[in-house]
């Protein structure tokens, strides 16, 4: 230690930090402050979103009180209860996740464990193309092509389950092409790319030595995935799934076109419904006063829900990534 100091000798000034900062030009300091300001901009925007939209929504919260969570949404008689939209958001989000997760995990495992690198790249491009198709194009295709087509399938499933206790309540009539389930399917396609790429990143952090160890013990690929890959990556994959859920809940335009626009709370998944982003998008144009305040208020609730989901999900993803790096 002392040897090293002596070797560096007179080249080091008595107080290096101070001497350097004194020599630092003004432009250099300015650049740092500019960069810091741009970083802080993110926090500022998030705070501004929360405060400015809450301010616009205050009228709704103050006139309706706890009735904001009531079932009745009838702008004509000034009743603005958001419960049916919250319910719809939960239902469509869950359908989307249940459909998207097996697909995304399947593709992610295919990419990381099965196909060689040369083949994996084109597959990644193709899956990412799903994310390039704009939301409004999914909606247009959903309402003009997909809904009329799947309507017949719903109708035959609906008549097949009539009379069977639980299934009738879930899949029985009334059925419609534009429905909770159609919306869930379209949302599932839209979130598949992000869930796939995040899961793939997580799975790629599994140490090669774990994989090789499992293979060395004579495991098949499936046994290796269950014994070596899954225990390492289940935390991160949970985070990826939650992020997908957050995306599905906030997706607006596709949902607004295919959900059927009917503010009801029903267990029938093939029936038309409504969710939070869809009602804001569809009814904002004609709204004013308390009506408009209520729609912005639904946006505030949606913002709160997605922020909570994202914070939890990012926390899980980051923690599992850190643990992987440490291992």
């Amino acid at each position, binding site marked *: 230690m002392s040897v090293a100091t002596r070797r560096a000798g007179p080249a080091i000034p008595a107080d290096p930090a101070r001497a350097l900062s004194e020599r630092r030009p003004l432009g*250099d300091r*300015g650049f740092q402050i500019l*960069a*810091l300001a*741009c*970083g*802080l*901009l*993110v*926090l500022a*925007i*998030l705070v*501004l*979103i929360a405060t*400015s*939209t809450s301010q*616009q929504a205050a009228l709704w919260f103050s006139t309706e009180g706890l009735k904001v969570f009531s079932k009745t949404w009838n702008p004509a008689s000034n009743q603005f209860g958001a419960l049916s939209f919250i319910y719809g958001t939960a239902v469509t989000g869950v359908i989307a996740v249940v459909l998207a997760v*097996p697909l995304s995990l*399947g*593709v992610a495992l*295919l990419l990381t464990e*099965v196909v060689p690198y040369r083949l994996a790249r084109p597959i990644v491009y193709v*899956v990412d193309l*799903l994310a*390039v*198709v*704009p*939301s*409004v*194009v999914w*909606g*247009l*295709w959903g*309402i*003009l092509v997909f809904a009329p087509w799947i309507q017949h399938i719903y109708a035959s499933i609906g008549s097949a389950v009539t009379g069977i206790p639980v299934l009738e309540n879930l899949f029985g009539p009334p059925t419609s092409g534009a429905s909770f389930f159609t919306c869930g399917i379209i949302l599932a396609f839209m979130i598949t790319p992000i869930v796939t790429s995040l899961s793939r990143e997580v799975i790629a952090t599994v140490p090669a030595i774990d994989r090789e160890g499992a293979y060395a013990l*004579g495991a*098949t*690929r*499936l*046994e290796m995935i269950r014994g070596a890959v899954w225990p390492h990556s289940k935390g991160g994959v949970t985070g990826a799934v939650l992020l997908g859920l*957050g*995306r599905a809940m*906030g*997706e*607006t*335009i596709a949902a*607004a*076109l295919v959900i059927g626009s009917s503010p009801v709370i029903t267990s029938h998944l093939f029936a038309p419904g409504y969710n939070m*982003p869809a009602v*804001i*998008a569809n009814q*904002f144009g004609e709204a004013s006063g308390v009506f408009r305040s209520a729609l912005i208020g639904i*946006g505030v609730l949606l*913002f709160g829900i*997605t922020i909570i*989901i*994202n*914070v939890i*999900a*990012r926390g899980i993803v980051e923690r599992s990534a850190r643990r992987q790096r440490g291992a």
Partner: protein
Amino acid sequence: MTAITQDRGPDLREPAGWRRTKNQIATILMVLAFVVVIIPLGFVLYTVVAKGISIISVQFLTSPIPPIFAPASEGGIGPAVLGTLEITGLATVMAVPLGILGAIYLNEYGGKGLLGRLIGFFSDVMTGVPSIIMGLFLFSIWVVHFGFSGFAGALALGCLMLPIVIRSTYEMLRLVPDSLREGSYAVGATKSRVTMTVVLPAALGGIVSGALLAVARAAGETAPLLFTILGGLSTANPNVFSGANIAIPMLIFNNASSPYSGAQARAWGASLTLIVLAFLLMITARLVTARFSRYSRY
């Protein structure tokens, strides 16, 4: 002799029986998952191209928007094309430099401190904020005071792009090896100079490609514009800073629920335009990455 060669015990190279079968079933399911994912993609792209290609022409891309009941042969989507180019361009000019500077702060200055970690975490969280919230935000903070305008739409799209640009730029800056920075410090350069003339050029390919992908995403967004540019125009409003404006995604949204076949045809044509635009941006991004990737592979 033959009996001895055959009696070698179980074949150790391949697991036998049901374990092998289960493994094969799992592999088939993975391939099946990929097939199920590409079917809707192929279906959507096929429909958009098949229904949109016949209406696309120079006249379609430049003519004013006709009334919603007009047949497909009349008018076009000219004002929406102009609006999309103006609004997305303006959003890019605002969000990309700010996003790059934010990423510079995260990677070069405060990344490991508490504030840096906080900013990094919340910019990731911000990528998950629904785009409709950005629209409501700009409506609450801008439109209620200054009215609808293309600029309000650009601000909303900019808020959407900012965290995406920060994240992609940050990932690229992280790839630049420290030896480059140290080499520049050793010859006496200041930190800002090192960042601007050494670190940024080294990561330029990835940064540009990430920015282009953010632009592609923003160009297709409808929800942020719904509350900021109002739409409903038939002729172009070249003034981005005041008065209602129109963009391609808004036009598709308005026409999608219309019963008129002409309106639907224009929606398909506009969708094809939008997808081609997004694909061009994506291909450019890939080319830029391919062209410049050697600079980041030190």
